[in-house]
């Protein structure tokens, strides 16, 4: 008898479903095919014919994959989105920023890479810790059944959050400076933003991403949600 589960997994591989849904859908479709095949065998069909007739019931693997993805994506429940992205993402953001504040409180000094009017500085210990926080975000996201893309997004969640804060700060700061009558050179502000962007967003983002990728390599292929899905 063919390995229906393996066959379904192989034919329906590709993006579209998160890990929990994928396992559940594969198990269900494999069970259907298995019963169908056994039904044909009981009718007296030779094995080859039974397999052929069972395959006919699929109606096209690509069509099946596409339609299931569309049906499942149509309404991603809010609860699921919260569990797969927002909670792990915020956890990554809060813990990484708390750790940075703690380092500053303990008197750790940043390493200045570029000296001048607006230096670029890095908290090396903090940067070294970020892959861990990124991995943690990706791990919790994957555990909640998120797709690889969602898990990686959860791992680098502090970057878009801080970018949004940066982008908000820029016009607000300009308005305040104008109201208070201070003249601020735009090119100076842009330089500061660029350098802060590198030290606070780009490099930390890369460190978080490395952690997310490592978590995906180490844990991403395990069926985290197997119990929840089939239980």
């Amino acid at each position, binding site marked *: 008898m063919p390995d229906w589960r393996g066959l379904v997994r192989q034919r329906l591989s590709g993006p579209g479903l998160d890990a929990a849904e994928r396992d559940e859908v594969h198990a269900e479709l494999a*069970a259907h095919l298995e019963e169908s095949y056994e039904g044909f065998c009981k009718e007296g069909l030779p094995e080859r014919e039974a397999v052929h007739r069972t395959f006919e019931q699929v*109606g096209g693997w690509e069509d099946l994959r596409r*339609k299931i993805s569309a049906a499942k994506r149509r309404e991603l429940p809010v609860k699921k989105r919260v569990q797969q992205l927002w909670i792990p993402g915020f956890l990554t953001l809060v813990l990484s920023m708390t750790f940075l504040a703690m380092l500053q409180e303990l008197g750790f000094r940043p390493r200045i890479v570029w000296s001048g009017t607006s230096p670029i500085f890095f908290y090396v210990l903090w940067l070294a810790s970020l892959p861990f926080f990124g991995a943690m975000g990706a791990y919790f996201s994957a555990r909640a059944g998120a797709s690889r893309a969602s898990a990686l997004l959860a791992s680098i969640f502090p970057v878009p959050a801080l970018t949004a804060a940066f982008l908000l700060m820029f016009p607000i700061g300009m308005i305040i400076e104008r109201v208070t009558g201070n003249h601020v050179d735009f090119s100076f502000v842009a330089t500061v933003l660029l350098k802060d962007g590198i030290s606070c967003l780009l490099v930390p983002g890369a460190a978080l991403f490395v952690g997310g990728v490592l978590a995906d390599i180490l844990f991403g292929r395990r069926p985290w949600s197997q119990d929840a899905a089939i239980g």
Partner: protein
Amino acid sequence: MIGSGIKRGTAELAVLSVLQDGPLHGYELARRIEQQTNGALRFTLAALYPMLYRMEQQRWIRGTWETSANGRRRRCYRLTPAGKKKLAPLQREWAELFRALQQLTKVAHA
């Protein structure tokens, strides 16, 4: 054989009607519909499961994993109260449509 457009419209009604008699897993559901319609409604997996998942999202049906007597795990679908509520007007609408079509064909043949 009924055309695909009509089939799409009747598919939900067929699933809800069959589940009215009790919970069924996907294979059994498809088989029951095929038997009860003398083969006029036949579902491929690509037609059946996306529809079941959509109906589940709409909370008309609910799927749960169950273990059968032979130890096999199957996802069984049952009608929810919302599904029962949906079924009654659907049945009425389709009955009206078929009556109207019958009238029309009678007139056409007269």
